[in-house]
């Protein structure tokens, strides 16, 4: 039976090449986008380069503070990264995490070198940062806890920054890098993190204690990200509870402010929530929003294919009538049509997957996907089985969405109309 349907599918598809092309075109392109998008996102969320433990890390990067009067929110309201004191005096004491690190995250660093404008990234970190992420040290060592506490003028630079500043010089340990008005002594050189790393980013790293301009009156707000590494993702819940309880205590003790901490979130959650008002954007609403986008994205080509299917139902009239005459029930015919349609969408899916590999292979480095306001990442490969499942499920949804209604119409056609035995 399926063999019979398969033969029909091949014949019908090869006889009406324009229709086949139109059907496959929409599906293939959509699957290609789904594939490229999910491969790249999967690459980011799995972690690459120094982020090999990404799946065990949760982050807080947004705090909001409302001024309050008698327990009611009034007037002023600010959102920012985590404050230095909030991190140092409170969040760093979370017990359920193995490693807790605070850092500014990548910040723009623009300077003129040898008469040329340069745009690089600098990242102000604590010593724990080097335990949290697995940078590959080519020379030297990271700065340690004591050096951070003492605000030592030290820096870790990447290989590309070293090549820019020092050219072919072999050993650059002990040489200085000028950052604003400071001369930082290089203690280590690391391999550049890949562009797909979204947390371990930067060209120049130095102790966050070197920056003194943090407003001491701002207890909660500042420019820091705080990251908690757990033994496994099972610890995420306890870590979140602990962090939230700490902030709740601060909130209760402060009669002039109401404080809200967003997270801690995993990489996936963090990407969904983004940098908006932390009280407005929760993982749930973001997930819903993205699912709606995805559905709309899949719905358009599905509707297109459905319209094509409707338009040519009458072409199949004679075949349907003959099959009915010889005993096909409507349900069986619906099954046949859906089967053919899913074969069509799966074929489109396979073409889409091949296209996505070709696009990533040939254009991956010149095309980027924007993931947040800081960065775009190059389109990337990832052999994650989830990506294939995403493509496959998309094809099935396609096949069902675009085939179901036409199949019903088709199975209800009156055979007598197409079997005019007498007149020709």
């Amino acid at each position, binding site marked *: 039976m399926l063999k019979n349907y398969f033969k*029909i599918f091949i014949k019908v598809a090869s006889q009406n090449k324009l229709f086949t092309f139109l059907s496959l075109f929409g599906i293939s392109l959509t699957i290609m986008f789904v594939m490229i998008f999910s491969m790249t996102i999967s690459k980011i969320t799995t972690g690459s380069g120094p982020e090999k433990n990404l799946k065990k890390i949760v982050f807080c990067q947004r705090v909001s503070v409302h001024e309050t009067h008698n327990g009611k929110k009034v007037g002023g309201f600010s959102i920012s990264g985590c404050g230095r004191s909030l991190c140092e005096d409170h969040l760093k004491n979370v017990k359920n995490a193995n490693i807790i690190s605070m850092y500014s995250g990548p910040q723009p660093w623009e300077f003129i070198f040898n008469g040329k404008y340069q745009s690089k990234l600098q990242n102000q970190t604590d010593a724990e940062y080097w335990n949290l992420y697995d940078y590959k040290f080519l020379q030297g060592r990271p700065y340690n806890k004591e050096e951070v506490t003492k605000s030592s003028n030290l820096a870790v630079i990447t290989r590309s920054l070293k090549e820019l500043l020092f050219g072919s010089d072999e050993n650059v340990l002990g040489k200085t890098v000028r950052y604003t008005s400071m001369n930082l002594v290089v203690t280590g050189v690391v391999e550049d993190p890949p562009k797909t790393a979204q947390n371990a980013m930067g060209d120049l790293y130095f102790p966050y204690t070197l920056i003194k301009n943090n407003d001491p009156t701002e207890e909660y707000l500042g420019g820091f990200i705080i990251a908690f590494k757990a033994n496994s993702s099972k610890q995420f819940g306890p870590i979140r509870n602990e962090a939230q309880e700490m902030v709740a205590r601060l909130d209760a003790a402060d009669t002039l402010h109401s404080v809200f901490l967003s997270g801690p979130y995993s990489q996936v959650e963090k990407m969904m929530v983004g940098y908006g008002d932390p009280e407005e954007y929760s993982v749930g609403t973001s997930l819903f929003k993205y699912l709606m986008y995805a559905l709309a994205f899949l719905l358009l080509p599905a509707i297109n294919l459905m319209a094509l299917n409707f338009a040519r139902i009458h072409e199949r009239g004679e075949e349907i009538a*003959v*099959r009915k*005459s010889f*005993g*096909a*029930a*409507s349900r069986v015919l619906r099954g046949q049509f859906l089967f053919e349609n899913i074969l069509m969408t799966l074929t489109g899916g396979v073409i889409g997957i091949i296209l996505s590999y070709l696009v990533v292979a040939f254009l991956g480095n010149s095309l980027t996907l924007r993931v947040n306001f800081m960065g775009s990442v190059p389109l990337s490969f990832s052999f994650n089985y989830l990506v294939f499942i995403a493509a496959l499920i998309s094809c099935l949804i396609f096949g069902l969405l675009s085939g179901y209604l036409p199949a019903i119409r088709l199975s209800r056609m009156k055979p007598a109309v197409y079997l005019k*035995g*007498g007149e020709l």
Partner: protein
Amino acid sequence: MIKLENISKVYRTKEIETLALDNINFEVREGEFVSVMGPSGCGKSTLLNIIGLLDEPDKGKLNLNNLEILSYEDKKTARMRNQLVGFIFQSFHLIKELNVYDNVELPLIYRKTPQAERKKRVMEALEKVGLVNRMQHYPSQLSGGQCQRAAIARAVAGDPKIILADEPTGNLDSIIGHEVVGILADLNSKGTTIVMVTHDEMIAKSTHRIVRLFDGRLVG
């Protein structure tokens, strides 16, 4: 085998109502070979479609193989068409995407006959019509006579009690036409009940009985 009582069928389109069959009473006994004759548009095809459960009458009772048709539920009529009836059409209506073998196999596929049994039955049917050497051909590669023989093989592959043939010789020249009717007569001699629409008096006379339709009514 086939019994129609007061069967009427009206076709309604936006502009007109056509009374295609008007109070038809008609019986065919088991093993009979009956010809249906009448001018174009008198309701012959409609009659065959109603007997074959491809169309529903507006009034009257239909009895097939001692079973009164009370409802036209899709699954039930599909099963009856599959097991009881074999259709032959003037313009063959072979599925053009399938070769002769696959076309003939069609009724057996909807009956869920096992593969080996299917093959045996298809080969037997093809032997009956002398088309074994053409079984890999597609309809477009066959002559009209060969197409109609393939269609007959398809109609008999499921070994139905009734064959309904709507002008089976209409598209064939007279020699080939007689050959095709010969095959039908042969099937009839082995017990198959046949109702055949034809315009050819000679062919009609070679069957057991002639029924004449005029404007949806039986005459003579």
